[in-house]
């Protein structure tokens, strides 16, 4: 029974190519996996930033509330000291301060919410990137496995071809 040495060598060549492809896929998978880790870290940081932004907003709101309180308190003292009723100019001033204070607080809260959303979006994006990299890594890993299986088949075919099976 005659086998084909040329065919077997061709098959071995294919197997070698597949092995290298598998190695390449594994390298890519590892890169993707590592990138996923990086993105994970970035996402974690973005998450932390969001909490920090929330905390920062609360702090700023607290600080602003205290300023508002201080400002209104000072105006109430001034009005009271001048025996000014709450109506008239002094009342108007107080009312304006309260409105301005509310507005400032609303601005701080809104800005904080915006920043929180931004960091949350950033964290979500990083999570998505991590998931994507992980998926790519898994795919590359699967591809490597497939290439290895293909190489095994080609090698086996070459051996079989060598013996003419």
């Amino acid at each position, binding site marked *: 029974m005659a086998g084909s040495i040329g065919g077997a060598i061709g098959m071995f060549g294919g197997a070698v190519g597949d092995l290298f492809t598998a190695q390449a896929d594994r390298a890519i998978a590892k890169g993707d996996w590592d990138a996923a880790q*990086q993105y994970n870290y970035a996402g974690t940081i973005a998450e932390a930033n969001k909490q*920090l932004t929330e905390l920062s907003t609360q702090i700023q709101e607290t600080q602003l509330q205290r300023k508002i309180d201080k400002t209104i308190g000072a105006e109430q003292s001034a009005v009271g000291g001048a025996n000014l009723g709450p109506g008239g100019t002094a009342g108007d001033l107080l009312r304006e301060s309260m409105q301005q204070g509310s507005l400032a607080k609303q601005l701080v809260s809104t800005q904080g919410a915006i920043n929180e959303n931004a960091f949350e979006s950033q964290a979500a994006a990083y999570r998505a990137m991590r998931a994507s990299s992980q998926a790519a890594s898994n795919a590359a890993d699967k591809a490597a496995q497939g290439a290895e299986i293909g190489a095994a088949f080609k090698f086996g075919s070459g051996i079989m071809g060598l013996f003419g099976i």
Partner: protein
Amino acid sequence: MARIPQFDAGEGRLQPSEAGSAAFREAGAITQRNAARVGAMIEQTGTSISGGLKAFGGTLSKMEDAAKDHNDAMANIDFENQLTKAEIAAQGGINLAAAPKDSSGKPILENTPARAGVSLPDDATVPTPGQYATTADATLKGHATLLDNMVGNIGGFWGVSQAARDKMALRAAQSNRQLQVHAAAVEAQNQFDHALTITGETEKEIYAGVNRGEIPLDTALAHIDRTYDALSGALSGDFAIKGGPLIEATKRQAHQNAIWQAAAGQVMKGNIDGARAIINDKAYDKYIGGPEREKLLASVNGIQDQWLKDDAARRTAGNQQRSDDQNNLTYQILQNSKLPPDKQDPNLTRANMENLKPFVGDAAGLEKARKIIDSEIEHTADPLLSQQHLAAVMRGITDGSIKTDAQIEQRFRPGQADSMSWGDLTHAKQLLKDANDNPAVKEFNAKVKEWMTNPGNQSQIDRKMIDSTGNISPITKTALGQTMLDRWHAEVQRRADIMRRNGEDPHELLDTNSPKSMVTPKALAPYVVTDQMAQQFQANQKASSADINAQRQQGTMPTGTPEIPSNLKNTKDLGFNEQSQQWYDPATKQTYSVDGRKAPMLGAPPLTPDLNKPVVMPKGTTPDQIKQQLQPGQKFIIEHDDGKKYQGTVPGKRSDAGGQLNFAADAEGLGNSAAQRAISSAIFHDDGAKTEAASAPAGTARAVTDQTQRLENVRGYGQQLTGSIVINGHNYHFINGGGGRGSIPFGSYSVSNFRSAEQRASQGLIHLGDTFDLNDVRDPLAGGTRTALRIHAAHGQGTLGCIGILGGPDKFEQFAKDMKAAGVTKLVLGPQGMQTAAK
């Protein structure tokens, strides 16, 4: 109360930094890009290596494909070769299974579907369809098994592709199918042959009955119709359709054979006109066309012509035999006359000649013989003149002007002094026979003629041909010069004859460089014409017959033949050279002058037969030629008819004064070994056969075997027989057996029904050439009846029981003529002395 100091973060200072996540994002991107680059590089490396390997593998695959194609081709060739051999063997086996067998069981392989128009021998047997089927089936199975093994063996060789194996298997299947088709065709042929053989046996009975007149021709023709109609009905299918025309043609031939047998029956009775009447009968027009009728009539006419020729030949042969007998008797009377009176045979005398059978009723022959005896006894012929006659005859034989015995006999005038002597006449006739029959002698004579007719050569003997200026002129050639040239020529021929007997090439005689040359000045010296010789010649020319007779009456030999000197009278085998005029003592090799004094030898040294140098006699040398060449003490090598060579020495001495050997007596001295018997047979047994022939009754021929008994051969059949048949004085060697069921028993056989090759062919018989029929005989050794026995030509290998006349068709033609001339109807086969034998 303590106040908690107020801490206010600056505006925008509580904003988290994106730097960390951006750094990791960038790191992830870089990692991905690098991994992609590394992966790409690894893949590129793999692609490169893989591509190289694939390219190498591809090239190797092409080489392997080429090698595979070659392996396949070689395997296919081997397979086809073996397949061809197997097919030939299988087809041969199939053909053999259906082949008819001759009487010895030997297959007749012409009897295949390819056979056309070849009839089977009378004694052939055809396998039955059942026998054929059994053998053919075994052959088909054997062939199929063989092909399976071939496919397995050859297809299993390393490097042979599956495609090639598949192809072989397909071819094997095709071969099996073809062989089956062939077997079917042969089966049909076998069935046809079997039916035809049965029909043929019926036919033969019809022919025999018609030939003997026991069955009326019209009844026989109707019987043939019924027989062949039955044969047609027995065939079926495609073969019946194809065989129909053949059966019709065979039936027509059978009708014609029956008509011919009826006519032949009339011929055998001597009624030629009756035979012609049967053939010309218009009632048989539907069986015989014009050309066929002409052919049968031509056969009858041919038989009639042959009868006439045979009759004439018988008369001619009878005359020749009578002449030979008279010559032999004359010789015996001459020898008898030289014996002392008390030892002479009283029947063999000159006075009693007229009572001897060969001379009774032939006055002319008697007178001629008596003149011969008188001339020999009284030496009436001048020996010198006779030698001149002989020399002239030899010259005539050499230059081709003398071609017949009659030309020589013109010089034989018994009773006259200028006649050629009887001994020289006999010698001259033998020389002419040799020159006519032996191509080597003829070729040598042409060379001698070429030398003798050259004026330059002639002038070496006859100086008168050279004028004073040295020119050579044939016009001035003298009569004496011609005489001496003739003597030179006679001596050349004598020496050539001796050299041939010694197995030497006589052309050396014409070679100036050979020590045996006869053309050197020294060798020619004795023949050169001298003045003294010319004067003596002129004196002899003037001498009258009266002077010669006077010399004879005075007790001297005529024309100056010298007396033997007293000192040489007791010399044994003393010779005299007339050319050199010298005596020669062979014992001492000394030459003497004419008056007996020692003298240096003139001319070429004497040449005598070398008894120790074997005379080689090739196959085909006739007994007469053998006898002529042998003398006592001569060693010889003879190639017998069996192809073997025997050597020996001729025993005994010359038994009579005439120098002839008594071969019959000497043959007994050869001893009794197988080789010696063979030599004895080759040389001498014709004498026994002649004796037997002479004493056999009229119409009976004796086939005298060399074997005294018919023994069994290794197969239990009769051993091969050899021997001689003498008819009309001609000796024919024969063989019997050697093949088939061996030789036939000793005994008496009827001889009949000579048929030429053409007649046999016209009767549809197997071609053997011309034949005579012998009767069937019961053979105890073979355990049955031997049939279809013939006498026919043979070439030395053997026969199946027929008498084979050796020498081929030409020899057999002469044999047949002698058989017819002698009217032989009975042949007695057996050893010498067996004149009668039980059938």
